[in-house]
Structures are given as structure tokens and as C-alpha cells.
């Protein structure tokens, strides 16, 4: 098993202390180190950017890449067009680098891993076996997988606060030629790939949050699937924000070379905190000729409490570039968490006959606000896109679908179908639809439909007459409403997502 266990980061504590010292007097606080965490000083400066780069052992070109993004970021303004409302973020009052000290050495057993982290994994439906692998428990790989589909493996990369804590199944993946590692490792080990593709889908100048991410991302996942390879297992990243006042800025880069295929899963959680925390991730996907990528997300960051205290501000830029002919991408997301969500996983359909799909469930309850959707940019001929969005608003929340479908003049004979449905639970919430449609050639066909309604009284009564209480009935009906999207999820996520729907709507009726 040895090689398939977690590859933990080695401690560099003394080095970092020295590094900070060398950066000058303004870091008079030095490292704030408590029992679990190691932080860079609060705030953002060029020196912090250099430090993050240094902590990751990055080459000079990478440091410069970050710095130019940082300088650009200083010139930019936070976007305000989304239907979300939150207090101004003080970007100097955040930690931009934190990592769990306990991850410096390899845990010997599950007991040594933060129980919260394990509980999180469990709640997300990661089988016990993989929890053990993730935690690097001795002999974990020889334990038969629970459940009866033991041939169904998922390789996991876990990002804890800013740092990748481990990746499973590395050896098996390597045999297939698949590279699955943390992005920091990829920058060191595969600079030619990173140089070629990083920022080629989401340029460092793309938008305020993406530019911030380009400057300060500390880790994330990197995937390269070589030509003709069908990735032998599903790949997965679990993101976890744990430290207080810490922004998480992970960067994911996925490259599917010609005729390659990969299914990628992403899960996110964060603990309860009274103060809001910032999360600004970037995901870039490059898909070459005849390749296909499926990217599924279950986003369950802490949503804040009933009064709207705390929670994650989730400002994420995700984009797939279907660069090759006949390339395909499918985004599936279940968004139940975060206090504020600002997220538009998009598809650039550049190759002829390329296809983009977007399936989304966004649930908001209490004081949550979500402004999410997608962009389908049709550039190639005979391109296809499909959008299925299901928004569910409860409590005092607001839920907005925002999307763009753009048919460029050369995207002849292309098609888009969009279906946006909103469901309202209670009379204090809001459901909004903001679609942009731009058609610049006549042979392309765009169809957009949207509906807004409430949970049907007759359906509720029918369920209750059969003995279900209101919450159970609502959960059942909402799951039915969102069925089309749930079905697009891989098995591992679908069950968990259904339960999340029920959990997210707790307290929304009665």
C-alpha cells in the first residue's frame, strides 16, 4: 500500500520564520502559531504574495506571475452587479495563508486526524476506507471497501485551509499516466504543463476575485489526463476552511488531453463561526479534441446562522474551455452552503461540435444569498449547450439565477436549451431569474424557459395524509423538483446531495 497513502507536506517551520524575518520589520508579529495552525501575518502586500510563493518552493516565473496579478488587483474594484448584499470586506483583515500544523507529519491513525475533518468526510459520504487512506492510516488500502461496488474507486485530494494535505491512489493513477496532485507540487514537478495552461482559461486579469486568487492562491488540485486515457477512477477534492479569519484561495487546473475522460468531484465544508469568511477559488478546465470532463460540486460551506451571522462568502470563478473539436464538459453543482454565493461555472465552446452542460441546484434558507448560474459562450460550429437550474428559496433568503447564452456569428447551427425553475417556500424569501441571451447568427437556436412557483398544496396534503410531517414532505417534493440535476451527479454524491437538500431546508416550514 505504501505509495498510495497520503503524501503529507513536510514541515518548513524554521524556514518560514527565517523567511519572514528576511522580509523586513513590518512583520513585527511574525508567525502567529497556535496549537493547530500556522499563519502568515494578516493583510495583503507584495511581501505576503512573495511569501506564499516561497512557502510553496515556487520558481521565479511563478512568483512574478502572482505579483503581476497582485498589482493588477490593486487597480480593480469589487463587482457589485450581483443580487447579493453584504458588509464591505476588509481585505487587509484576512489571513492569506494558514496551514494545519498537525499535517506536517503523517498521521499514524484516524485518532490523530481532526475529528471534525473526519466527521465532515463522513457526512459527505466518503467511505470509511477512503477516510483512512486520506488520513494515511496503516494498511488502509488492504481493507476491502465498504459497499458492494469495490471496483468503484475515488482518488481524493484534500485541501485543508490553504494547503493540500494529501492525495490518495497516486501510484495507481501514475500507472495510467494520470497526474493528480496538488497544484503546488505541479508547479514544481510539471512546470511545462502549468506554464502552458495556468491562466489560459481564467486569465489573471479576469475579474476582481480571480485576480486576487491568482496573486494569493496557496494550493489546490492539478489534474492532467494524457491523450486517449480514460481516468481509471473518479477524482475528488475536499476543501475545508478551518482557521478563523482565513481566506481560502484554492486553484484547480484540469487538463483533458485529446480523447481523455475524467470525472471530478469537489466537496466543501467549513465549521461554524460568528464572523464571515472569504473563499475565492478559481477552477480552470482545458478540454482538447474528443475529450470529456465532468465536474461535480457539492458546496456545503457554513451558511451562517438564522440571524445571518457568520458563514462563508463564496466568490468563485469556474470556467471550462472546450478548446478541441467534439470536446465535452458537464458542470453539476449542488449549492446548499455559504452565506453569500457568487458563482458562474461557465463553458467556452470553442471547438466545433463541442458541448457544454450545466446542472444546478441552489438552495438558500434563513439569510443566505445566492447569485449563481452559468455562461455558455458558443464560438464553434454545431456546438450544443444545455442549462438546467433549480433554485429553492426558503426563510428570508434570496436566490438568483444569472446566466448568459451567447451565440457568436461563427457558431452556426448551434443549439442551446435553458430551463430555470424556482421554488419558493414561505413568503419572506425571494427568487430571481436574470438570463442574458445574445444570438448573432440565424442558424442557431436558443430556447429559454423559466418558471417560479411554490410547493403545491395538494402534493403537501397527499404526502401528509400518507403520514409524512411537513419537513419530510417538503424535502421529498423538493428532491423531486430537483431530480433532473440530482440524476446528473455521480452516485457517490447523489445520495448525499439528497440528504443535504433535507438538512438545508430544516426549519423552513411550520
Amino acid at each position, binding site marked *: 500500500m505504501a505509495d498510495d497513502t497520503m503524501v503529507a507536506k513536510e514541515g518548513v517551520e524554521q524556514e518560514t520564520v527565517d523567511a519572514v524575518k528576511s522580509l523586513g520589520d513590518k512583520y513585527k508579529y511574525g508567525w502567529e502559531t497556535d496549537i493547530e495552525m500556522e499563519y502568515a501575518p494578516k493583510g495583503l502586500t507584495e511581501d505576503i504574495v512573495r511569501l506564499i510563493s516561497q512557502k510553496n518552493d515556487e520558481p521565479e516565473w511563478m512568483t512574478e506571475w502572482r505579483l503581476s496579478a497582485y498589482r493588477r488587483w490593486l487597480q480593480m474594484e469589487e463587482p457589485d452587479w450581483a443580487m447579493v448584499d453584504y458588509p464591505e470586506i476588509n481585505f487587509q483583515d484576512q489571513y492569506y495563508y494558514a496551514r494545519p500544523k498537525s499535517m506536517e507529519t503523517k498521521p499514524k491513525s484516524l485518532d490523530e486526524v481532526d475529528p471534525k475533518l473526519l466527521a465532515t468526510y463522513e457526512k459527505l459520504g466518503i467511505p470509511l476506507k477512503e477516510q483512512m487512506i486520506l488520513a494515511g492510516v496503516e494498511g488502509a488500502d488492504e481493507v476491502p471497501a465498504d459497499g458492494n461496488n469495490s471496483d468503484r474507486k475515488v482518488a481524493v485530494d484534500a485541501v485543508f485551509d490553504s494547503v493540500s494535505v494529501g492525495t490518495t491512489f497516486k501510484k495507481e493513477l501514475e500507472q495510467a499516466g494520470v497526474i493528480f496532485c496538488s497544484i503546488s507540487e505541479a508547479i514544481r514537478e510539471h512546470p511545462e504543463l502549468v506554464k502552458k495552461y495556468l491562466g489560459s482559461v481564467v486569465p489573471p486579469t479576469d475579474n476582481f476575485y480571480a485576480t486576487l486568487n491568482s496573486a494569493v492562491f496557496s494550493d489546490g488540485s492539478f489534474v492532467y489526463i494524457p491523450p486517449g486515457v480514460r481516468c481509471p477512477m473518479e477524482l475528488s477534492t475536499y476543501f475545508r476552511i478551518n482557521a478563523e479569519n482565513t481566506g481560502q484561495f484554492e486553484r484547480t487546473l484540469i487538463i483533458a488531453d485529446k480523447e481523455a475522460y475524467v470525472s471530478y468531484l469537489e466537496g466543501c465544508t467549513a465549521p461554524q463561526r460568528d464572523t464571515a469568511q472569504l473563499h475565492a477559488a478559481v477552477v480552470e478546465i482545458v478540454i482538447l479534441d474528443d475529450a470529456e470532463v465532468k465536474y461535480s460540486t457539492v458546496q456545503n460551506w457554513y451558511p451562517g446562522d438564522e440571524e445571518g451571522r457568520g458563514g462563508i462568502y463564496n466568490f468563485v470563478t469556474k470556467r471550462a474551455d472546450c478548446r478541441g473539436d467534439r470536446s465535452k464538459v458537464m458542470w453539476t453543482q449542488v449549492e446548499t452552503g455559504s452565506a453569500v454565493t457568487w458563482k458562474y461555472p461557465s463553458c467556452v465552446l470553442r471547438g466545433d461540435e463541442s458541448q457544454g452542460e450545466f446542472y444546478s441546484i441552489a438552495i438558500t434558507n434563513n439569510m443566505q444569498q445566492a447569485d449563481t448560474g452559468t455562461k455558455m459562450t458558443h464560438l464553434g460550429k454545431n456546438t450544443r449547450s444545455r442549462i438546467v437550474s433549480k433554485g429553492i428559496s426558503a426563510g428570508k433568503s434570496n436566490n438568483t439565477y444569472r446566466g448568459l447564452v451567447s451565440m457568436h456569428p461563427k457558431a452556426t447551427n448551434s443549439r442551446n436549451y435553458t430551463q430555470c425553475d424556482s421554488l419558493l417556500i414561505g413568503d419572506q424569501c425571494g427568487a430571481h431569474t436574470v438570463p442574458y441571451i445574445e444570438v448573432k447568427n440565424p442558424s442557431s437556436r436558443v430556447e429559454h424557459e423559466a418558471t417560479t412557483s411554490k410547493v*403545491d*398544496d*395538494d*402534493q403537501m*396534503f*397527499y*404526502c*401528509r*395524509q*400518507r*403520514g*409524512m*410531517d*411537513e419537513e*419530510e*414532505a417538503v424535502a*421529498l*417534493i423538493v*428532491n*423531486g*423538483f*430537483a*431530480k*433532473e440535476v440530482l440524476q446528473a451527479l455521480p452516485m457517490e454524491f447523489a445520495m448525499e446531495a439528497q440528504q443535504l437538500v433535507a438538512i438545508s431546508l430544516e426549519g423552513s416550514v411550520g
Partner: protein
Amino acid sequence: MLKIENLHVKLEAEDKQILKGLSLEVPAGEVHAIMGPNGSGKSTLSYVLSGKDGYEVTDGTATLEGNDLLELEAEERAAAGLFLAFQYPVEIPGVGNMTFLRTAVNAQRKARGEEEMSAAEFLKVIRAKAKDLKIDADMLKRPVNVGFSGGEKKRNEILQMAMLEPKMCILDETDSGLDVDAMKLVSDGVNALRDENRGFLVITHYQRLLDHIVPDVVHIMANGKIIKSGGADLALEVEKNGYADLLETA
């Protein structure tokens, strides 16, 4: 089993009195039929007993085994053993029939403090019962009542009844929209559930259903109350002479 006394009910939205002092008792083990012309309040009775919103009880009581039904939420009445076979079963897109039934079965078991039924056991039981009602596997997988024919919907209601094993079953115009074969199938399903511990209240407009489900008592309902009760032959009398005579004498 079911005891209704002097029940007065009005429609909240229209402030219109529908039930005007209805009294009725269905002992365990008996099948009672309620017949009556359109608009006599038959469906209202089934909705009020099962706890649908929109009706206001202005007077009277309704109890199931001595428990005040009117105080309970719809799901509590279900857990107490009351089952309504809907005249128009509701379609729930996206929710599989099996998922629906399993959720219902386990919700009721939980409410009664019983253990939940395991997936395997549930599957075994439902397959057997579905077979009796000629419900194929495909119908179990499809979303609840969506795209079902009239007959399929009614058979599905009886399947739910069989799975939930209620104490008191109310069948609201279960015969409506059924052809002869479907009626026979549904009636056989109901008859199979008849036993000494279970009561039935069969609401129907026509006598023909009562050829298949033979009642112990027939009540004639008009203008919000029971105007006459009798044996199974009372239904035949109505079939022959219509409601007009009865309404006049009442």
C-alpha cells in the same frame, strides 16, 4: 372505530356551510358506504376527516378509537391509522413511487415508535403486494401518479393502503373513472384487506362498486347530513329509484 357526531363544516374561502350536523359510526370490522347526489358534501367529509386545509369545523366531533381526530395534523391522523384513497390522486413529478411509499411507511412507523422497515424488507413486501394488484415494476419506479392512467392511479392508492395497513380506510369515489376490469381489481384489493380490526368508509355516487365491495351498512347523504341508513339493499333501492324520492321524504 370511527365516530362522527353532529359535524358542522364550512368552506373557509367561501364561508359556505357544507356539512350540517352529520353523525356516523363505523365499528371495527365493518364496511359502511356513503351514497349521495353530487354536492351533498361526500368529498368534504373525506377531506375534513383526513385534515385538509381550507375547511373550518364549526361544531361537532370526529374520533378514531376515541382519539380526537380534529385536533391532529394530517400526518398525525395518518399515523393514528386513518387512510384516504383520493378521488383524484395527486401527481408528484420527480419523486419515485417507491421512494414516496417507503418514506410514508417509515414516517408512520417512526411516529408510532416502531422500527423503520429496511430497504430489503420493504422491497420484498411491496413487490408481493404490487403483484396482487397487477402493478408492474415500472409503475413502482415512475414518479408518483405522473403519467398514470385513471385505473393505475386508483390501483396505486390501494397499493399504498395495503402497504400502510391503516385501521380506518376512507375510499373517496374510488370507482370514478374505472372500467369494469379495473373496478374488479381494485375491489379485490380492498376486499383482501377487510378484517375484523379494520373499518371502511366507502364513498360513492353509484351502486355498482357496492356489488364488488359489499357493505354492512349503507348511508344516504344529502345536503350535508345522513338522511337515511340501511342494509346493502338500500343501495339497490337508490340505484332503481334515484335519489329524488329519498330527498323528498327527508
